[in-house]
């Protein structure tokens, strides 16, 4: 950026001040979350508004991990989120590939339908879905959650994957086919390695979304041993007469996988949106 070269010192100071503001705004609530989690129970309310607690403890984490069902919730969530991420990415990659590489009858209609699925209140279909799923006897099953989450994440994931595929020249696959590959071999040997960042971004995006979903999990799961983490966390409210410290500790633990995933994918997310989605 040539413009950046002739910035005045005042502008530079303003820029770093702005960066600092954003950083504080983004991280302070997270800090508060952690702060409450490590504050000893006795001090949660007496030092409630103090920015730095006078003592820290890992008791809450210990309790959460050893004396609650947290690990089971965590495992369920991990299973559902990983399953959703994997299936969605696979399905969306196939669909995105078709959108990127083929012209076919009904393409516009399909895109419109996918956009509309992003448009209506999900609440509207919770009751019908509940009914359908209870009729096929899949209530309290983590598989049903995976199926539902997958369907809801497909449209965005498809657009994301399409924009990644758009960034890979069609020539490459054609060259591979001329070299004797089947389309599948061309996909596997040439397109797949090149679209790894895209697959990673999509995986991470869907994982994060599935990890934090509450509404459907609340509706479709009522048995304790099938609860995902967000639902389980809500039970902390009643079970332990709202033990804030423990709840926060559980929250902090739950943040770890999605944040890790997110830190890993966010660069690819920008990259993916840059290559294709902008044309829209």
């Amino acid at each position, binding site marked *: 950026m040539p413009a950046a070269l002739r910035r005045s010192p005042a502008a530079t100071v303003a820029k770093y001040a702005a960066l600092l503001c*954003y950083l504080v705004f*983004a991280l302070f609530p997270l800090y508060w979350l952690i702060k409450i989690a490590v504050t000893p129970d006795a001090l949660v309310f007496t030092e409630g508004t103090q920015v730095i607690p006078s003592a820290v403890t890992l008791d809450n984490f210990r309790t959460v991990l050893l004396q609650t069902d947290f690990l089971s919730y965590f495992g369920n969530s991990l299973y559902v989120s990983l399953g959703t991420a994997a299936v969605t990415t696979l399905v969306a990659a196939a669909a995105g590939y078709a959108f990127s590489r083929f012209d076919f009858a009904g393409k516009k209609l399909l895109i419109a339908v996918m956009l509309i699925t992003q*448009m209506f209140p999900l609440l509207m279909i919770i009751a019908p879905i509940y009914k359908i799923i209870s009729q096929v006897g899949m209530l309290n099953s983590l598989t049903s959650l995976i199926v539902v989450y997958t369907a809801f994440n497909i449209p965005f994931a498809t657009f994301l994957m399409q924009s990644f595929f758009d960034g890979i020249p069609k020539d490459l696959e054609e060259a591979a086919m001329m070299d004797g590959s089947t389309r599948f071999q061309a996909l596997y040997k040439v397109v797949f390695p090149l679209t790894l960042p895209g697959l990673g971004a999509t995986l991470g995006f869907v994982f994060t979304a599935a*990890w934090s979903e509450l509404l459907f999990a609340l509706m479709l799961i009522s048995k304790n041993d099938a609860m995902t983490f967000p639902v389980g966390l809500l039970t902390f409210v009643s079970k332990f007469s709202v033990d804030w410290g423990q709840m926060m500790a559980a929250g902090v633990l739950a943040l770890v996988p*999605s944040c890790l995933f997110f830190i890993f994918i966010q660069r690819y997310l920008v990259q993916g949106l840059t290559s294709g989605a902008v044309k829209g």
Partner: protein
Amino acid sequence: MEGRAVIARATKTVVPRRPRARRSLYLQYLVEPFAYLSPAIVLIGTVILIPLIIGISYSFQSIELLRPFDSGWVGFENYAALWSDRKFWIALENTFFWTFWSVSLQFLLGLGLALLLNTQFFGKRLFQALVFLPWAVPTFLSALTWAWLFNPVIGPLPHWLADLGILSEPYNILGDPELAIWGPIMANIWFGVPFFAITLLAALQSIPGELYEAAEIDGASAWQTFSKITLPFLAPMIAITVMLRTIWIANFADLIFVMTGGGPANSTQILSTYIFTTAFRKLDFGYASTIAVALLLILLIYSLIVLWLRKKLIKI
């Protein structure tokens, strides 16, 4: 087969390779995309579209789990009830307020962040990863965190606001009908700025660098460069992102639901939380669907207007 072809070549005799008989390439080209699309189509069809149609049909029925014997088709009765429902109109107004302020503040802050991230500075990678983190936080957790931050007993915000003279004394704004909605809006901004920043940053990065160089040579000031090049280039992306985000936020009930539950005195009740309470507190699914259909229509009209404006105003 390959071996034979090689031998054929070596001896320079023409042994035609037997092409495997297969259906016409043409047919294959027609069918192939649908083979890739079918899982997506089946899933969206069964999990979203069919329930959606059932859901719409609910709005023409009376389905109250508390009055199971009254169920059946009722025509437009639910819609008539909606028209004269004062709570619906309040919720509609709140929806506008909530959506407008959430979207515009998210957008402005997101644009600022994207512009900053599009420059070079020390530690940029780490900064970008950290500043985007709120997006990865599960929404109910964000909601809880912000609820505490606004709580004068365990959160610092009321005290700071009082120190700044914005509040007369440190009290919980979530309990004040005048101000309560700003609590969830604040949480929403925190949670949503990264989304705008990511999409706008992507758009910014796809503006060709030569354009800036040309503008520089032409002697454009920083502001002129921004308003004459950056903004027009971003406009299509802005239109789409703002549209999708508006729809999403209008439907987004989690934050309000956890932070205020629609109260106090319905002052934070938006349409989607109203749908939720109607469906799962009153167990009146017919009426809940009616409200949802109304919201869907409003959003559809809104998107059509945005798309039309975009076509009219943006020439790229």
